[in-house]
Every structure is written in C-alpha cells, then in structure tokens.
C-alpha cells in the first residue's frame, strides 16, 4: 500500500479499475484524492476499452459464452495497457477494483478473478464493485456532482431513478417494469434491420426521419409513480414495420421516420418520468445526474435538459466515454469505497462471489416488479 498522504492530511490513491460485465473488456487507472474519506478530486489517467462487437454481431446479440471467452483472452492485456497509458507502473497502483456484478456472470468472474490475482501478487487492497454503483458515481469523474443528487441510470440492462444521498446510500424511486431503455433501442434496431449497437444506429437513422409521421404510444401516462415501460413502444414499432412492409412502403424514409418516432417517444417518456421524480424530490440539492450508455443519445439529453431547466435544476452527465461501460467508473467507485472504509477486508474480498443479480437499492416496498423467474435483474 503506497497511497500518498497529501499536505492537507488527505490521501491520494492510484486505483486500477476492471470492468467485464457485458461485452466490453475495460480497464482504467484513476488518480483520486480524498480528505476525511470524502472525494476531493478524481482524474482518469487512462481508460482502455476492448469492444467485442464484431464477435457478437453475427448472433444478433451478446452471447454469454463468447463474451466470457473474449474477456479471458484480453483482460490482462487491457489491464497492462491501462497502466502503461496512465504513465505509471504496476508497483505504483494502490488498489484494484473490479466489477463483481450484476451482469453476465461468466465475464464478471474473469475480471474479478484477474483482480484477485493482481491484488494478491501486489499486496494491494481489492474492492469488489457493483457495476451500477460505478454508473451512479461516474459523473463524479468529470463533473461537479457532490452528494446528494437524483440519478437517472439508463443503459442496456437498466432504467432506474435513484436518490443518491451519499456513498452506498441509494433509494430507488422508479424502475422499468419490463425492458430497459437500451434493450428497447437494440430490439427496435433489430426490427428495423439497422444492426447493433441499437442506440447509435437508431440515432443516426433518425437524423433523416420525421418523428411525427407514425403514432407512437406514450407509456404509463396515467400512473402516478416514477416507473418506466418500453415494451409497448417496441410492440408499436413491430406493428408499424409489419404494416408498412405488407403495403410495400418500408423504404429508407419509412425506417428513418420509425426510428425518429421511436427515439422521440423514448426521450419524452424518460423526461416525463424524471420530471415527476424531480417534482417529488425530498432534498434541496437541485442536481440531476444522468448515467449509462443511453445517456449518450443527444435527443434524450436534450429532453432531460429541458425538464431539468424547467424545474430550475442543474443537469450533469459524464462524457460518452464514461457513460458506456468503462473501467474508470469502477476504479472511482472502488477508491471511494476504500477511502470511506466501506471496502471488505482482504480475506473477504478474495473470497467474494461474483453476482449475476445485485440490486443497487432495494425495491420500493409494495411496488416490487417481476422480471424473470428470479425477479428483476437489479
């Protein structure tokens, strides 16, 4: 352990973060400074991402076994590159953090096992990190995002509104009752034969489209909670695609118009539910933080900026490279947990079991939703 004591009595850590929960093998070195266990500043010195898109493309979705095989092939190379690109050496790393769930457990196991080996060999602490906590804290890498804040987490696997009152203090106030927003983008892109990843493909197709040509539903308008739903939208897209195809009208323009209509409907739905959460927010700190890969979509960003602005709230979102899966957010979450004394002791960390399901915050009492045999993923 070679963390540096700063003149002000704080501590400075170089944290190595490893992320392998889906189809990106990622690692990063983050330089984080703390005073009294509280984050003062953080900077990603490197962020390496090895994308496996090409390996899954021909299967029309992420194949868990292919993802796991790909992660083990490259995890150490990506870690080494992150350390080299940061301009530091293995010996200078003060702690290692790895995603320990939720996600595809075969991949999580690879990154977590590599982190365990690294921690043991180098005598540094290991912090198993909840991937969702990484997203929840990711804005703190680049933005002024002091606690507390309202978090909208929108990714391929998750769509949640969470009150973040401090490190490890999360209260879920809304979640999807069916698909995640990113999942809806991927499925819609598939219906429109736009290829994957769905988010960027739909966003580019929508540029040439008219969002008002086809009617798309606005989900859950009559519900007073802050939950989300995307499966009705997906069905609407399928019905329109089938009708246009049967009528011989499914040309490039129609696809662009459907993509545009879908994207606008998603943006408005996310904005409407977030506006409701803002209206009900119980804290004075008027800050909305948006994280997750879907936050990279410009129309969604615009819609959220509008509702935040109308309520007099500040909006913060990390740059796209820290919205999608990355190692820097895992390194930061690990460093924050360690500095706050919330990391498990070494023996416990080395024996930590990877988790396919690991909710960041418990479900709202009385409003638990389904989502598969074992309950919702998160």
């Amino acid at each position, binding site marked *: 352990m070679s963390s540096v004591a700063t003149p002000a009595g704080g501590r400075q850590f170089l944290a190595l973060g490893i992320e392998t929960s889906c189809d990106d093998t990622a690692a990063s070195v983050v330089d984080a400074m703390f005073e009294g266990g509280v984050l003062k500043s953080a900077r990603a010195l*490197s962020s*390496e991402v090895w994308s496996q898109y090409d390996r899954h493309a021909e299967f029309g979705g992420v194949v868990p076994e292919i993802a796991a095989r790909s992660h083990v092939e490259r995890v150490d190379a990506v870690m080494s590159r992150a350390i080299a690109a940061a301009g530091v050496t293995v010996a200078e790393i003060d702690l290692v953090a790895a995603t320990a769930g939720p996600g595809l457990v075969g991949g999580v196991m690879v990154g977590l096992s590599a982190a365990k080996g690294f921690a043991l060999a180098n005598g540094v602490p290991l912090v198993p990190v909840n991937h969702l906590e990484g997203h929840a804290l990711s804005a703190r890498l680049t933005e002024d995002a002091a606690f507390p804040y309202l978090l909208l987490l929108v990714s391929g696997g998750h769509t949640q509104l969470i009150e973040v009152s401090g490190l490890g203090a999360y209260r879920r106030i809304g979640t999807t009752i069916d698909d995640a927003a990113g999942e809806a983008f991927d499925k819609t892109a598939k219906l429109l034969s736009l290829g994957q990843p769905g988010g960027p493909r739909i966003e580019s197709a929508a540029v040439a489209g008219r969002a008002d040509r086809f009617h798309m539903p606005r989900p859950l308008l009559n519900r007073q909670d802050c939950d989300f739903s995307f499966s009705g939208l997906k069905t609407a897209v399928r019905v329109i695609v089938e009708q246009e195809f049967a009528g011989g009208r499914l040309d490039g323009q129609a696809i662009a118009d459907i993509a545009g209509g879908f994207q606008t409907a998603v943006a408005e739905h996310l904005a409407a539910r977030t506006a409701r959460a803002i209206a009900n927010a119980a804290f004075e700190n008027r800050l909305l933080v948006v994280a997750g890969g879907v936050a990279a979509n410009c129309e969604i960003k615009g819609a959220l900026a509008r509702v935040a602005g109308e309520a007099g709230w500040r909006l913060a979102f990390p740059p796209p490279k820290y919205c999608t899966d990355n190692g820097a957010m895992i390194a930061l979450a690990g460093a924050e947990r360690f500095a706050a004394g919330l990391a498990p002791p070494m023996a416990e960390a080395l024996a930590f*079991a990877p988790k396919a399901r690991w909710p960041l915050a418990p479900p709202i009492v009385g409003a638990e939703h389904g989502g598969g045999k074992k309950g919702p993923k998160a």
Partner: protein
Amino acid sequence: MIVLALDTALSTCSVAIIRGPETLFDRFTFQAKGHAETLPPMAAAALSETGLIAADIDRIGVVVGPGQFTGVRVGLAFARGFALGRPNAIVGVNSLRALRDSAAIKGWIAPVVDARRGEVFAGLYDADGDERLQPFAAAPDAAAMRIAEAAGDADAICLLGSGAGLLPSDARFYRADTKSLRGIDPVAVARIAAEAPPPAGPPGPIYLRAPDAKKSAAALLAGAMAIPGGIRSESGTTDGG
C-alpha cells in the same frame, strides 16, 4: 526454481508451491462450483504459510483445460492477474496430462473426463509418458475406438478420470482404482510447469468445443455491417485489437 501451481479445471480446486524437488505447500478441495471464491484464498494461504511473496515465484503453472469452461477461465484469469507484467511466467498445463501425472500408475494411460452432453474429453500417453493423442472431445464410443487404435499393440491401457466409466469395454482397457486418485494433484501440475520450456507468452484455454450460439438470420444477411472491434483508447494509445 519456485513454482506456484493452480488448478480449477475439473471438479476440484487446488494450489501447490514447489521449490526444486521440495513441496512447500499442497492444498486441495473437492468442488464442482465456486472456484472463483475458493482459489484466491487458497493461493493467499500458500504465500502466507510459506512466507513467500509473488516476486519469489519464478513460474506459475495453471491448468488450462479441457474441463469446465468456467473453472478453466477462473484459473487462467487469476494467473494472468497475478503475473501481470510478466506474462512469460505462466505455463499452461493440460488437464489430461496433469491427471496422468497425478496417478502413480505405470504403462499406457488414457485420461478420460466426462464432458457432459454425451461426450468425453480424452487423450493418450504411452509408457514413457509421451503424448500419443492430443486432448480431443468425442462421444464415448468414438473415443474408445480412437484410443484403441492409437495404442497400437500396447497390452493394456489404463482409463483414468471421471469419464473412464463412460467408455465401452475393450479387452485391453482397465480402470484405475479411483479411490487412490482424488483428481488432479497440484504438485504434479507444478512439476510439469517446472519442466516445461520457457513459455513465449501467456497460455490460452483449451475448450475443445465451440460456444453455444446460433447465428441469427438477420445477422447472416447483415454480416457486412458488423462493426470492427478494437481497443478503443481514451488515453492516447490505440491498436486494431
């Protein structure tokens, strides 16, 4: 030479450390699951009980399969993280060779591991320990034929491992007393690694089976639209992946 051996490929988890002919640490559990939780504490115990540090370890021998895919990856990923920055310190050991060397049996040996789904992973070693059949996956009948054929005029072939009972009888086959063999012995793994030539890079896993995945019709049509992969670097270094 000090060698650390790690095995999580089959239904056991084990760690050993040897220094030359001397065994400094040797631990073993039976378990079909949970290798990711058991191996790292066991390796930590190996270091603390021997008073060694990672830099004292000259080589890491890790069993890379064939075996359970998840277990194979746990061992390999742990070894790669442990040896980060010195990938040439890792030696991959095949599980069938390790099984053969774990048994105190002379003569021809065919290690056979139950690969499930109606298949076995098998290999063949002659009386001198030379590999006569590289690890392969096959249905038990086909595996028996390949072994019998490759054994030429050998008088007897000892079948060893969890899949030994799955092969049909053959006049020359006999089965080892399984009570005397608990599985892969990590000390045998360490010795194989110690005797191996210096590796040129980190070993890869031996799966012998393609991943379960069906190509989607849409994807077959859209094959040309695949986005090429590559390490996306936000920190100034790039390569084509």
